[in-house]
């Protein structure tokens, strides 16, 4: 079979698996609303509504139909971009999410960037540094990063840099498109708090990837040829050890989106995480449902992209090995 056809077959299978996962995700999200306590018709109609009015709302919302029919209708709506209407202010859920998503995405992307900027040098230092000091320092960094909760670290950063030194404002949000300087000044502390936490896991991977590659034959050949250590690191070890690092960085996205709920709460950033929490308290579960779906879709899409990127980055990963 020629390589092009194999590649297409692999791509189709991968996308097929993605669609299947998304379908199950939609069933879980639908089941979530069914499991919620309370009567959604009552929430929509308002606490003071008469029983007749509640029944009328139930019929309007289609809640009197059998569950499979309700699910199919839900899927139909979602696919056509109708995530329902917020019980709180009557606005379309998709509009609310679209409003909040940029802040969350910006926070996520900048935090990953900071995480990589800390993790790569730290990981290399841990792998190549001689003596106990580098090992102890890196262990301390990764263990601290993995153990200190990002939301407490964020509060401590606020105390030092906003309350005491007054270098930054803590709290509030200005969209990037409105004033990028004010935006970055407000994002600095949340991004450092989240990025530091994320750097710990990535640094571990950088260290083990660099150690793995360092013992490869081509690195020994390069050493035998008399290349300098710096050149070997830059030309041979780093490019090859970055492949698993890209994967693990991409996969951090899922965990980070969860953690951002807390970061957004500490700093008062109006992102998706804050929207979920506020909607849970307001019992506005149509919005919670929309946010859950959005978060899961984001993660599935990022994971699929990381998978595709992985096979592109490393020509040694054959499509057969990737599951064709």
């Amino acid at each position: 079979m020629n390589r092009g056809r194999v590649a297409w077959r692999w791509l189709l299978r991968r996308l097929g698996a993605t669609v299947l996962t998304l379908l199950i995700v939609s069933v879980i999200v639908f089941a979530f609303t069914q499991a919620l306590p309370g009567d959604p018709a009552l929430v929509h109609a308002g606490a003071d509504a008469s029983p007749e009015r509640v029944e009328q709302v139930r019929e309007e919302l289609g809640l009197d139909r059998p569950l499979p029919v309700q699910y199919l209708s839900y899927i139909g709506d979602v696919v056509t971009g109708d995530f329902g209407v917020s019980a709180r202010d009557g606005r379309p859920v998709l509009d609310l999410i679209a409003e909040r998503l940029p802040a969350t995405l910006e926070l996520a992307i900048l935090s990953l960037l900071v995480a990589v900027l800390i993790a790569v040098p730290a990981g290399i230092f841990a792998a190549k540094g001689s003596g106990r000091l580098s090992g102890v320092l890196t262990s301390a960094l990764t263990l601290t990063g993995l153990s200190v909760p990002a939301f407490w670290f964020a509060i401590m950063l606020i105390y030092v840099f906003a309350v005491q030194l007054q270098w930054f404002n803590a709290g509030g949000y200005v969209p990037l498109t409105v004033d990028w300087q004010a935006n970055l000044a407000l994002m600095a502390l949340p991004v450092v708090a989240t990025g530091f936490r994320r750097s710990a896991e990535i640094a571990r991977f950088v260290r083990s990837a660099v150690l793995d590659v360092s013992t490869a034959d081509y690195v020994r050949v390069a050493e035998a040829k008399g290349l300098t250590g710096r050149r070997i690191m830059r030309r041979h070890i780093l490019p090859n050890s970055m492949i698993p690092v890209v994967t693990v960085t991409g996969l951090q996205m899922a965990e980070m989106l969860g953690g951002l709920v807390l970061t957004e709460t500490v700093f008062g950033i109006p992102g998706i995480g804050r929207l979920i929490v506020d909607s849970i308290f307001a019992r506005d579960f149509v919005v919670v449902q929309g946010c859950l779906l959005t978060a899961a879709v984001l993660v599935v899409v990022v994971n699929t992209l990381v998978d595709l990127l992985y096979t592109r980055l490393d020509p040694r990963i054959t499509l057969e090995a990737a599951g064709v």
Partner: protein
Amino acid sequence: MSSTVNLGAAAVARPRRAGLARRLLRNPSVVIGGLVVLLLVAGAALAPLVAVAPDAVDATAAGQGPSAAHPFGTDPLGRDLFSRILHGARVSLFAGLIAVALSALIGIPVGAVAAYAQSRLVRGGILRVVDALQAFPFLILALAAAAVLGPGTVNAAVAIGIAFVPHFVRIARAQVLSQLGMEYVEAARVLRLPSGRIVIRHILPNAVSPLLVQASLACGVAIVTEAGLSFLGLGTQPPTPSWGAELRAAQGYLLTDINYAFWPGLAISLAVLGFNLLGDGLRDVFDPRRRSA
């Protein structure tokens, strides 16, 4: 005959167990992590004996820093922070324990079925559902479960346990799969032992150590997640002292009183560090080929 065999097995098992104990005690991560966890358990157990009541108000000492009377200082209401942190350890450990026990109780059997079931549909179906559940960010899944169950310590612990199930399914499945090719499993199959018995009596005991490692690491995550849920107001509710709820309250006093926010966060960090070290150390001892950083 059988008693001879058993005696022989016991004789072999004893030095092996002694060797394991020695290796555990020689591993600094296990020792330090174990000590931190032990300290935590002791603190939680002895809290009512060594500290004043967590709700006792000393109005003359509101919002003060550490002193002889109040080792960690007091909160703005005049309650002793040392006592509140120690009592908070009870909530954290309880939540960690319930969450890990629940997820292991559901996740391990489901993971074993996902590895051992005859039907390809069952094996594939479980994996697809686990994939889909893992598409939800962990804290968001726990939040959704907490929204369904309502606030409270037990509900938060159950919510975290539910969110952890997919992780345990994966680990248990991987462990059972890795044992399937072993000769003792072949032998049990040749003897026509029922599948359930092979998995429960033969395979799972051999997969205990990685599951133990996972349980220790999961306990750390569960503690920080419970603190997160309580910080958001969806976990333990005041006046019950919990580290997350203390932090939530302390955030409002950041301009005047850093002491209040400092101790609960330090407690969470230490607890998570303890369980992480213990988990990492156990992994190094049980599986020396895969040393952690």
